[in-house]
């Protein structure tokens, strides 16, 4: 080639390693400065990031806590607490859930014999044991009872009742909540046979309103308290109950009903690189399945394996050659060098 560029006969090619020498044989070379190019790109990235940060800032909405919900939506707060006490999976995030919160693998997501949650439980056991009525309601109340003897009596009465009686009280109380009224922030139900449940729920509401519920959840069974790096129980308390999202919307999200890892709070880009993951949840047949998460995980694992092994997959690995987008990327080469052989 008479391009003015060096060829592999240039002694400087000898300074490359054997693999590069083999690959670059016969290819003209040009002068290049890796560090200068790296600094140029770093400068570009720094500039873009600083400009975006100054111009748009970034979102940082505060959390929604029990105090918010108990204050803004006392009835919904009590409905949630009563739902957790009843171990109702529709209200309580981890009731009837299966591993890693309890050992009932029949409740875990599975597709035929594919049941990773059950496999993990067989190997590691129940790694985050949570009994929602006990851990999220009765134990925090027992701590609050230290300041409220009446609450202590209600807890004792509930604890000594049969499971059947407890269930009847809680069931009747939850039904009565449908016609409950709120007065001065307190939830008032029509008279009925609820046992000590109204006192317990009133205790929960006061605990929530005081802002002490999360502290009680963090302190229970924690011999290393006040060191607490794990707010799992507090986060689970409202995680599937509507008061949580309603309060969040009321507090922070007016006019912006969606958020999450793909839908960032406010008008900010979220984790758009997960759109392909989120996409599968938009497919009705998947979204309506009780095993939706497992189906999506398996699809994504399969797609990742395809991506990983793409260099070896016949057909797929030939796509670039068929599309010929590379002619645009290497247009200089094809115009100036390739035709000269």
């Amino acid at each position, binding site marked *: 080639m008479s391009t003015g560029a060096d060829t592999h006969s240039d002694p400087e090619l000898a300074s490359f390693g054997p693999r590069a020498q083999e690959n670059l044989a016969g290819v003209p*070379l040009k002068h290049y400065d890796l560090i200068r190019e790296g600094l140029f790109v770093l400068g570009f990235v720094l500039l873009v990031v600083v400009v975006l940060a100054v111009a748009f800032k970034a979102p940082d909405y505060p959390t929604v806590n029990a105090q918010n919900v108990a204050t803004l939506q006392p009835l919904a707060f009590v409905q949630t607490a009563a739902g957790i006490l009843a171990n109702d999976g529709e209200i309580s995030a981890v009731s009837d859930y299966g591993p890693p919160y309890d050992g009932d693998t029949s409740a875990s997501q599975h597709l035929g014999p594919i049941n990773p949650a059950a496999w993990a439980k067989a190997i*590691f056991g129940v790694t985050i044991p949570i009994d929602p009525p006990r851990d999220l309601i009765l134990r925090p109340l027992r701590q609050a009872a230290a300041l409220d003897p009446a609450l202590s009596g209600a807890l004792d009465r509930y604890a000594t009742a049969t499971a059947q009686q407890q269930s009847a009280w809680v069931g009747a109380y939850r039904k009565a909540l449908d016609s409950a009224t709120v007065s001065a922030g307190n939830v008032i139900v029509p008279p009925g046979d609820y046992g000590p449940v109204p006192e317990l729920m009133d205790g929960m509401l006061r605990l929530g309103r005081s802002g002490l519920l999360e502290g009680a959840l963090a302190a229970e069974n924690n011999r290393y308290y006040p060191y607490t790096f794990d707010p799992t129980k507090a986060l689970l308390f409202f995680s599937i109950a509507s008061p949580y999202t309603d309060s969040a919307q009321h507090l922070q999200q007016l006019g912006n009903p969606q958020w999450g890892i793909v839908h960032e709070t406010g008008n900010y880009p979220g984790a758009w690189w997960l759109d392909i993951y989120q996409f599968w949840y938009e497919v009705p047949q998947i979204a309506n399945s009780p095993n939706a998460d497992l189906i999506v995980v398996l699809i994504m694992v399969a797609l990742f394996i395809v991506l990983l092994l793409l260099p070896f997959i016949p057909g797929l690995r030939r796509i670039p050659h068929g599309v010929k987008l590379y002619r645009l990327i290497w247009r200089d080469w094809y115009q100036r060098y390739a035709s000269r052989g």
Partner: protein
Amino acid sequence: MNLTASAQRALRRTVTLEDALPTRMPVYVSSIVYLFGAVALMSFVMLIVTGVLLALGGPFWYHTNSVGRFFDYLHFWSVQLFFGGIVAHFLTKFFMGAWRSGRWRTWMIGALLLAAGIFTGLTGYLLQTNWDSQWISTQAKDAMNAAGIGALFNTMNTGQVLMLHAIVMPLVVGLLVGVHLLLVRHDSPVKPYED
């Protein structure tokens, strides 16, 4: 057998100084697409620098202090650019058939890097300790549990998330980036297709 001498020979065979810090490049390396990987790399540098500063100040600082908030903004936008660079790099390398002539290792390490980057990003969202973290941690737990990963990784366990995001995952991503770059330089840029 002298292990050090063997290591020297292996290193010399693997990557020479000209491979590692090239002053010459094949002429076909002449397109903006060759900068996409560098954008991802330099965004990673920005993430490490801003991440170290956020770590030094701690969560209360980056929630409430104006300087801390600013470094949080920088970290946030560096993530966007990081994934922008990675996706652009991946797409263009795909259309260049960059795995040809034995470069499949570089491609596979790149795919692993993408997965490690996504997991690091997830732990970052969980570590914000704000409403985003609260929402995402309680939603993402279901997929983790369905996959069996929830037995070991609890999206709501902030202590675990902190260690993963601030220590473990940067090391994993950094190591993969190192191996990826070593392979890129060892193999030299892939030649254009011969039409």
